[in-house]
Structures are given as structure tokens and as C-alpha cells.
């Protein structure tokens, strides 16, 4: 009797799941042409909690600001739906699924952290929702994914920039690497740095050693003690700002005086707070500086941001802002709410004026932009130089 009952229950469940699957198509006929007065939803998936929360929050600041300045497109009100991906690869995929299936968003922005973006990639491609990453720099985010593009440069460029900085400005001949082995971002960036640095020094053995750590680690003393013995001229250690700040702090405590350089993820207030005096002199590449406004849109963005928050914006805030206005521009040009048509328009973005520079998307959907080098001096990020893209 029990068996029959449980089989019956199973049957009911299967049927109800089947129903749930077909429902959205019945109840959501796309009604084009009657867009005026309607609401268009843009999903945002960003780390709002967890180890990358500061990064996510800074991007969302920019997206919200852009939404306040440009709340409408083609007569429709734009509504932001923010989903927390909890700085976790599994949760990133969940957050993207939630935005697409439950909220029926037309486009998506996100995420800070390439690993998180890559995790959501296949879901976005399957659902054919145009997505714009703000600051995810790993090439794998957009390669092979026609629905993923970004408003920032990619790591093959960033790695070259930092290798050049180490070789030319720091006069380094030998480099040691410390990478966050579980982060696609860190491992990817290290690879491009290595290639470029070996080419610049013309020395096969220019990379004297590599140490690994995992996301969330707090103790780096063993790795750093090994690195100390190598007598490198520079240490390249791209990774999440929390881990990196602790790492640099422990390096200085172990008596390592070698310059330590990294990537764009370091530009977060927590990097300065946790690292304190230890991170003085740490240099990294990033996207944007508020010292030198590049476009007219930069001025608009900077004025609005300074008025609202009474501080200087981070690079990723400007990129979050750009990701939003690029999508809005594509919706405007496509004149449609059909994700596929918006994607077509988005892919043709050329010389679009963003807050963090002009945006032209290449065949992979990557923006070609210049990089900025910043350095920690007296407890603030200081602008050092601008490096133009390789044509």
C-alpha cells in the first residue's frame, strides 16, 4: 500500500514539474510594439556578501547611479533586479538562473570576479540573454559565448602591462609568482604576465618560482618563506584584495622587501584597511582614474558620483556604470525588448562614450581600452601612468 502511495506521489510530482516547465511560455506572450509605459528588467548578479563583497558593492554603486541618471529607455522604465552570487561559483550559476527564469530579465550585468562570470556563462548562453561584464578580465568569459561581452580590457593585455611595468619601471630581471590557484582570474593573469615577462627579459628562467594558495586562505607564511629564499626582484601576486592584503602583510613581517605588484582586483578600500602600512608601494593595473576624466560621460559620472557619495569612485564603479549605459544604448538602437535583437545591437557597439573611456567591442565582445597603473602611497591609491592598448 505504501509503495503504491509513494509511486502515486512521484507521479504527481513529475506531472507538476512538467507543468511548471511549460508555464512561462503560456503566460508570457511577448507583446512588441506596446512597449510604452512598460517595465524592462535588467538583472545584476554580483557578489554582495562573502570575500568579494566589496568589489560587488562598488560595481553596484555604479550601476545604481547610472540607473538614477538614465531611468528610462524607449519610453519604458528600467528596473534593476539585484541577485547576490555570494562570491561563490555555484551560487553565481544559481543567481543567473534565478534572474533568467524567475525574474525574466531582458539583459544581465555582472559579475565582479571572472571565475563567477565564467560559472554563469553557459546558463546565459543557453537562455540567450545579452550580458555585459563590468570588470571581469579573464579572456574565457567571452570566448565562445556570443551573449557575453564586457566593457573592460582583458588579462592578456593586463598581464603585458604589468610585465612591462616590472621590467621597465622596477628594473626587474627575476620575478616570483604567487597565484590564487582556485581563481581563474589569478591563474590566467599570471600566465600572460609570465609570457610577457620572459619575452621582455629574453630569459627563459626569468620566473624564478611560483607559489600557490587557495581562495579564503589566511596563512601564507609557508609559501612566503619559500619565496623569500629565491631573491626575486619583483613578486607578482594577483588575487582577491582580502587575501592579497593579508599576504603582503605577512610578506613584510617575514622580512621580504621586494616590490609586490598585482592586478585590478586590488583597488578596494579593504585592501588598504587590512594591509595598512604593509601595502605601501604596492602597484597594480586598473581601468580608470578620476584624476584624468577621459570623456564627456566621465564628467557626468564623476559629478554625479561625488555629489551622491562625497568621495572618489573606484574603477569598477565606473565600469558598472558603463555596463548599464552600454546595454541601454543597445536597447535604444534595437528598438525592441527581444533579447536576441538587443544582443545584435550590443555586438555592434563602436566608439560608444563611456565613463571609463570609449567602448568598441571586438569580435569576442571585449572592449579595447587603455590601462592605468596605480600605486599605494600614504594610504591612498595614487595614479601613476596610462598605458595605451596594443593595436
Amino acid at each position, binding site marked *: 500500500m505504501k509503495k503504491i502511495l509513494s509511486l502515486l506521489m512521484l507521479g504527481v510530482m513529475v506531472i507538476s514539474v512538467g507543468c511548471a516547465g511549460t508555464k512561462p511560455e503560456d503566460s508570457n506572450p511577448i507583446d512588441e510594439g506596446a512597449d510604452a509605459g512598460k517595465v524592462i528588467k535588467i538583472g545584476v548578479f554580483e557578489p*554582495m556578501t*562573502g570575500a568579494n563583497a566589496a568589489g560587488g558593492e562598488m560595481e553596484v554603486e555604479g550601476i545604481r547611479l547610472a540607473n538614477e541618471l538614465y531611468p528610462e529607455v524607449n519610453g519604458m522604465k528600467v528596473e534593476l533586479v539585484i541577485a547576490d552570487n555570494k562570491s561563490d561559483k555555484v551560487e553565481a550559476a544559481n543567481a543567473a538562473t534565478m534572474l533568467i527564469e524567475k525574474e525574466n530579465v531582458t539583459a544581465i550585468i555582472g559579475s565582479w570576479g571572472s571565475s563567477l562570470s565564467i560559472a554563469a556563462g553557459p546558463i546565459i548562453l543557453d537562455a540567450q540573454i545579452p550580458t555585459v561584464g563590468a570588470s571581469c578580465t579573464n579572456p574565457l568569459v567571452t570566448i565562445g559565448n556570443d551573449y557575453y561581452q564586457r566593457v573592460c580590457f582583458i588579462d592578456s593585455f593586463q598581464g603585458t602591462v604589468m610585465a612591462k611595468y616590472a621590467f621597465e619601471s622596477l628594473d626587474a630581471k627575476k620575478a616570483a609568482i604567487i597565484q590564487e590557484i582556485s581563481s581563474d582570474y589569478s591563474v590566467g593573469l599570471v600566465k600572460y604576465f609570465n609570457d610577457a615577462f620572459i619575452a621582455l627579459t629574453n630569459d627563459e628562467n626569468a620566473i624564478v618560482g611560483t*607559489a600557490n594558495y*587557495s581562495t579564503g586562505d589566511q596563512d601564507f607564511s*609557508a609559501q612566503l618563506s*619559500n619565496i623569500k629564499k629565491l631573491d626575486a626582484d619583483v613578486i607578482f601576486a594577483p588575487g582577491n584584495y582580502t587575501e592579497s592584503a593579508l599576504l603582503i602583510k605577512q610578506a613584510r613581517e617575514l622580512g621580504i622587501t621586494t616590490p609586490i605588484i598585482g592586478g585590478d582586483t586590488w583597488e578596494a578600500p579593504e585592501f588598504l584597511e*587590512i594591509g595598512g602600512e604593509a601595502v605601501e608601494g604596492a602597484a597594480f593595473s586598473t581601468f580608470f582614474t578620476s584624476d584624468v576624466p577621459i570623456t564627456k560621460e566621465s564628467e557626468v559620472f564623476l559629478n554625479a558620483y561625488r555629489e551622491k557619495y562625497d568621495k572618489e569612485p573606484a574603477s569598477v564603479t565606473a565600469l558598472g556604470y558603463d555596463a548599464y549605459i552600454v546595454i541601454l544604448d543597445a536597447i535604444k538602437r534595437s528598438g525592441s525588448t527581444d533579447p536576441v535583437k538587443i544582443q545584435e545591437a550590443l555586438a555592434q557597439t563602436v566608439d560608444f562614450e563611456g565613463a571609463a573611456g570609449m567602448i568598441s567591442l571586438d569580435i569576442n565582445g571585449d572592449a579595447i581600452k587603455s590601462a592605468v597603473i596605480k600605486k599605494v602611497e600614504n594610504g591612498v591609491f595614487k595614479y601613476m601612468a596610462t598605458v595605451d592598448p596594443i593595436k
Partner: protein
Amino acid sequence: MDIELFFQQLANAISLGSLYALIAIGYTMVYGILRLINFAHGEIFMFGTYIAFYAMTSFLLPWGGAFLIAIVLTVIFGLLVERAAYKPLRNSPRMSVMISAIGTSFLIQNLAIVIFGGRPKSFPVPDLFNTVIHLGNISIVSITFITPIITAIVLVFLLYIVDKTKTGMAMRAVSKDYEAARLMGIDVNWVITITFGIGSGLAAIGGIMWGLKYPSLLPMMGLMPGLKCFIAAVIGGIGNIRGAVVGGFLLGLIEIMLIAALPALTGYRDAFAFVLLIVILLIKPTGIMGKNIAEKV
């Protein structure tokens, strides 16, 4: 590995191991007396660290006072957890209490995200704990010396309470036979309260020392140390206070030496700790210092 690097790594290992030992003591003490694996220990640890943080930054207390307040408040917090999550299940099967412990752990983590926020906070470190001492080419931060001293003091203090005082005798009686202890006129609830209070106080001390060494606070910060120290406690023989100290140091030593000797395997650092747990459970489930007593049914 040359001799200098070896000693530097040894210093690193002692520094990490003494922290593990300190937290493992609290774990093992609660288990030894209540036969309860308190999975919320890591969260109580996190709570203590945040209280110390807010006492220093928002209320601008000197660090000594802040730490004391953090310990006191954490003890109260631990007792509340016990009252709410474990006491109602005192006569239920042990499995129910353990599930309740896991649930409590998740609840506190998520509450902490809501209350303290998801962005990492920077724990202010007084100079006393942050001075770098150079011995030849070996650099050691002063906290590396302070943590083992605190661990030793805590160990002696606990051994004194458990072995020499009347309360300790009651604790041992409760751990041997809960019902018989009650029949003999021991106030079991009071013994449990004391045990939990001490356990939570230890978690707070461990959390503060952790924050001083790794000054970035996150609501999830208790998770990994909690699991690692659970492993340390099992290695030493769960329930055995001396064993927890041995287990903590051993785990720290193994972790550091693994990375030092085999840098390519660094990514498997945490996995390695869990493999060690499985091996210990298979080969010697009672741990290094645990006694082989038949479990009564």
C-alpha cells in the same frame, strides 16, 4: 630545504599550530563532558572576534578592556545558544542535538551577514602583537610567542579545574554517566552551563588571537578554523584536553611542512587536513592520546 628555511618554517608552524591548539581545546572540552560535537563553536569564535572589533573601533576601548568585554559577552552568547538550541534536546537522541548544532551554525553565520555585513573588516592590531623580531635571517612576529604562552596558560588552567576542583569532579562524573551523576545529587544543568561558558570563553580567546594574526574579519571566518580545529581535536583524541593541544600543533606542523616541502600541492592544503581526519578515524579513531574505552550503549 636549508637549515635556516627549516627553522623559519618551524616558527610558522608553531604560530599556526598554537592557534589551532587554542581553539581545539574548547571543542574537545565541550565534547569530553557533554559528548556533543558543538558545530557552532566556529560561529561563537567569529562572534567573539566581531565583538572585540566593535569594542575597539566603535566604542574606542583600549584593547585589554575590549578583549575582556568580548570574552564576557561571548560567554553569555554561548550560554544563550546552549539554552536555545541544545537544552530542549537534552533527552533526545544524540543525532538530534548534532543536527541542531549544525542548524545553529548556519543560522549564526547568516545572521552575522545581516548584522555585521558581508564586506571584510580590518581588525586593529596593537603594536604588542605586531612587533617583528629578527633572529638572524628568521623573522618572527611577536604573536607567534604570545599565542603558545596563552595556550599553555589555558591548558594548565583547564587541567586544574577538571582534575583538582569539585566542579571538575562533577564534570567528570557527568561525562562518565549522566543519569548516575544526577542521582548522586549533581546539578547536571549547572555543570553543563559551566562547561559551555568555559568553551565559549575559549572560543572568544581563540577568535581574538586569530584576528590579531589574520586581521580580516568575515561572517564566514569561523567555518574553516572550526573544521580544522575539529580535525585537530580528533587527531589528539576528542575529549582529551592535552590531546587537543598535541593535535593542534601537529596539524599546524603538517600543513606548513606540506606546503614548504611540496609547493605544487598547496592547493590541496585543506583537502589534506580532511584526508588526515579520515585516516585517523580509520586507523586510530580514539586519536593519539585518547583512551580506548568501550562506548556504552
